[in-house]
């Protein structure tokens, strides 16, 4: 397959700028890309493409045409840089011909006839990447094997063959979208793509690629080992890391604001050394949990989209309700107390009162092992809370019980809430 039949076509036109010679353009086909590097961002639709090629220049002014029909390149981002011979090459101007909005021509002055390596860089949209995780829970839910993947998706209209791939984790600021600057054109170019994929398969290294992770300012960069060819329209998933024996805490949590009116099983782990992780932040992505259903068979637990998890930060995954662990709240008594009255003329009216309510919380565990609970009770207004079981004040309106029930265990917790209304309430 000939790359230049559909790729980014660049034509090198070497001319001396004297008017007499203007008509006699020398057309030189662009040499093959020597190297291409893709730096793909996940927070915005942006990829920085950096390609190097060897070009031959003649003494005088050279015209170099670069066109990108059918791709999603931002024309304002295309840059030319001489890597070798930079002191002898000078970009005089960049012109965008009126008849084509997907082409530019650089006028480059060369001090002498020379060959040079040049780097052409530009932004394109349509290439993206996403993280994905599989958590394989042990039969007792106490630990898991966490496997992280990165999937690179190419819908840019262009195939970048044997590209070095770098993935950027972080949230960058763009004032205009690259797809908008590119004119929003997407042309499917799938011919030959399958052939390319097969070729890439044949050329593949027979060991799993290492993905090197490094921090940079507020960002993190993953560099995929070796090179990748991802034809237009295809996506490719690679394993980023796998870690066995990651401890997981499973807590049955009542928190209606976060998890709805159900006792949700929340799986918690930390991206830190104690959890055999913490080597790098975990980019946002879908986490899917499976459990060992015996003899290496898998059962499906649930999935959640997570935000970016910084090093040492915690992740909580809602694995849903569990029919074998139940909670019931009953208001067993309501009293109104401390009624206070005022007079309006001879008319007496109620101006303040308290409600004093008693609740019974019943927790039951039908599982064959002990389970932990975290019960968050939210109240409104000016209230006092009392209970026989110790609780923590989480915020001005939330009280939390943390407790454990043995297998087949049952516990009742009685708590009382006094709420002041009207003039009884604190101003």
């Amino acid at each position, binding site marked *: 397959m000939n790359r230049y039949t559909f790729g980014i076509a660049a034509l090198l036109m070497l001319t001396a700028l004297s008017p007499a010679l203007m008509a006699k353009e020398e057309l030189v086909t662009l040499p093959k890309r020597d190297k291409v590097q893709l730096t793909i961002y996940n927070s915005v639709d942006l990829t920085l493409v950096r390609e190097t090629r060897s070009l031959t220049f003649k003494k005088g002014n050279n015209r170099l045409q670069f066109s990108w029909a059918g791709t999603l390149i931002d024309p304002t981002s295309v840059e030319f840089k001489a890597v070798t011979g930079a002191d002898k090459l000078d970009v005089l101007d960049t012109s965008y011909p009126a008849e084509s909005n997907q082409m530019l021509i650089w006028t480059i002055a060369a001090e002498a006839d020379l060959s040079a390596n040049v780097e052409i860089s530009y932004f394109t949209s349509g290439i993206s990447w996403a993280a994905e995780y599989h958590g394989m829970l042990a039969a007792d839910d106490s630990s898991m094997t966490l496997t992280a993947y990165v999937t690179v998706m190419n819908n840019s209209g262009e195939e970048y063959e044997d590209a070095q791939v770098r993935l950027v984790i972080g949230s960058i600021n763009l004032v205009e979208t690259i797809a908008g600057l590119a004119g929003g054109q997407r042309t499917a170019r799938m011919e030959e*793509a*399958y052939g390319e994929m097969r070729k890439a398969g044949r050329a593949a290294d027979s060991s799993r*690629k290492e993905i090197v992770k490094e921090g940079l300012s507020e960002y993190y960069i993953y560099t995929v080992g070796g090179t990748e060819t991802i034809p237009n329209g*295809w996506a*490719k998933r690679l394993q980023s890391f796998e870690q066995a024996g990651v401890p997981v805490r499973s807590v049955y949590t009542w928190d209606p604001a976060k998890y709805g009116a159900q006792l949700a099983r929340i799986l918690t782990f930390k991206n830190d050394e104690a959890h055999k992780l913490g080597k790098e932040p975990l980019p946002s992505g879908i986490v*899917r949990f499976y459990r060992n259903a015996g003899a*290496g068979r898998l*059962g*499906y637990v649930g999935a959640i989209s997570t935000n970016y998890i910084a090093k040492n930060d915690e992740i909580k995954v809602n694995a849903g309700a569990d029919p074998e662990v139940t909670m019931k709240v009953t208001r067993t008594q309501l009293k109104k107390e401390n009624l206070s009255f005022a007079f309006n003329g001879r008319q007496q009216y*109620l101006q303040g009162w308290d409600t004093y309510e008693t609740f019974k919380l019943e927790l039951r565990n039908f599982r064959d092992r002990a389970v932990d609970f975290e019960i968050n009770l939210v109240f409104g207004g000016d209230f006092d809370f009392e209970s026989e079981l110790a609780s923590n004040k989480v915020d001005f309106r939330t009280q939390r019980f943390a407790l454990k029930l043995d297998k087949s265990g049952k516990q009742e917790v009685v708590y009382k809430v006094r709420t002041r209304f009207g003039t009884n309430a604190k101003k």
Partner: protein
Amino acid sequence: MNKRLMLSLAFAAGIGSMIGFFNPVPAQARIKLATLPDREAVVVRFDNPNVVMVEEERTISLQKGVNNVDFSWAGTQIDKGSIVFRPADAAAKVEILSTSYPPGEAALTWQISAAEAMSVKFRLSYLMANIQRETDYRMLVSKDEQTCSFKHYFKIRNWSGGRFATADFVTRDGKKFEKGLENGEAKRVLVNTWDKVKLTKEYVYDITRNGEGKVMTDYVLKNAKEIGLGAIPLEYGKVRIYQDDGNGTTAFTGEDWGRFTPIGDDMRLNIGIAQDIKIEMKKMVNDVQNRRGNVYDTDEVDEYEIKNFKDTDAVVTLVLRVDGEWEMKADTSGHESFERIDNETIKFKVKAPAKGTPVKLKFHYQKKNVW
């Protein structure tokens, strides 16, 4: 030289025994000769209440080096993101290098590296849509209504586009049965039978359940070992109730939806109205007391006259509700027992003698601090 295999679900449209078809998106590209390893040991799991997971085993012959293995599922509804592919033996000397997804196809390609030429058994798991499940029950009640036999059925319907020549189906409570299931086919399987389950029959007056104040007949099954259940949480499902008529046959006596019942909870099934028990309610006292400006208390007496026209005595449960702050007065009378379920709800048990002799429940209460 890499070997390229194609795994295709046996049910994928248009797949023959030796030739796999992908949607030809470009036409020339994806029609290949492939060795199609048979599916082995297929398991369909219903243990998650919301989704169905299918797991199958395939033995793939790998050559030394990098192998490309295609998997396609055209015509079936597999959740692509849920696919997990791994060797059955974790110690197998193979590595899955990458997964590639072609555009616009229900397919993917794994790159698998093998240390040497070998046959390896792989497990492939995925979520599959449109396999429906449904639970239903049959209850055969003894003539004296003291015990019943309780049968638990599991019904599966396959609209997924796939077919299962044979598979192990696993229910939420871990019961396993082996069946074949074609696309479009449904099967109903008896998964549990509990005999000699103790049954409680209740006559219930509760105007939140029957607004006309009619008395309902309920069967109550406690999902607990002591009555012969309690092995698993009972799934939501329809319960059809039959009764032994004493003549060697049975009569259908009603049906109800059984709600999801964890172990230890009651499954309450309404089998209809008890026409022979009548309850009439009258408010005998309704006084305002202790008026303070716009705040007052009330003194109220509700009287329930219960008539049981049956030939035998019956115990009737009255579930009554009073809102706000209130307390029951000591001269409440006519009941065998009572239980305050919560602040608003009180439950009385009243013994109603046979043959229509009326009995009265006097419910005396004071509402406090009303405004």
